């Protein structure tokens, strides 16, 4: 199964829907993106994530479908937090399961890479010097 979710509360692995029990699972990969205290040489105080939710969920689910298909995954989940996040808090979690480790690793990497360039979520950084900036992204 698969599910892409947007949450405004603190997220953790427990934010991921219960895995469907499947005795064929041999590998599980997890990725967490965490708010760090620097970006591009600036000291970051906190972050704000904003989301175009209806399209974000459609595009996120599409990415999970692609990953399941490409890498023969058993399950694929992603949850992204929005709102104000402090340093050390988790912004995004990806979980993939599969028969063998190569699939879960590649599927997990594919999902976070695609989410970061395709899902309409934007990050505003608040710097130590009081400045703020909406990041420009790769586009």
């Amino acid at each position, binding site marked *: 199964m698969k599910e892409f979710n947007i949450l405004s509360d603190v997220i953790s692995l427990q934010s991921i829907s219960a895995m469907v029990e499947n005795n064929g699972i041999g590998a599980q990969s997890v990725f967490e993106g965490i708010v760090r205290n620097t970006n591009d040489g600036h000291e970051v105080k906190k972050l704000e994530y*904003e989301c175009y939710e209806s399209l974000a969920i459609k595009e996120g689910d599409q990415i999970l479908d692609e990953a399941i298909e490409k890498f023969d995954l058993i399950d694929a989940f992603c949850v992204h937090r929005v709102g104000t996040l402090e340093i050390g808090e988790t912004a995004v979690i990806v979980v993939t399961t599969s028969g063998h480790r190569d699939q879960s690793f590649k599927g997990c990497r594919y999902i976070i890479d695609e989410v970061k360039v395709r899902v309409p979520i934007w990050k505003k950084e608040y710097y130590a010097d009081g400045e703020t900036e909406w990041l420009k992204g790769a586009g």
Partner: protein
Amino acid sequence: MTNSLQIQVVYFAKLRELTGLDQEAFSMMKGSNPTDVLESINERHQIDIGSNFKIAVNDEFSDWDIKLHDGDRLVFIPPVTGG
């Protein structure tokens, strides 16, 4: 029969801050496409939305040259920076 379309534009992130609005309505000529709406936004707010934006019409990614329909809801999507 009217010759105009009522288009709703929703703003997010930097665009919301640049325009100072969550959303606003534009009255466009029949046959207008998202590129035409973009020009109207730039003109009305004296801004310059970059060419690297994507466009969503009624919550689906869309092309810039499709013909818009009355009541369409447009979102101009700045390069995303989630994760």
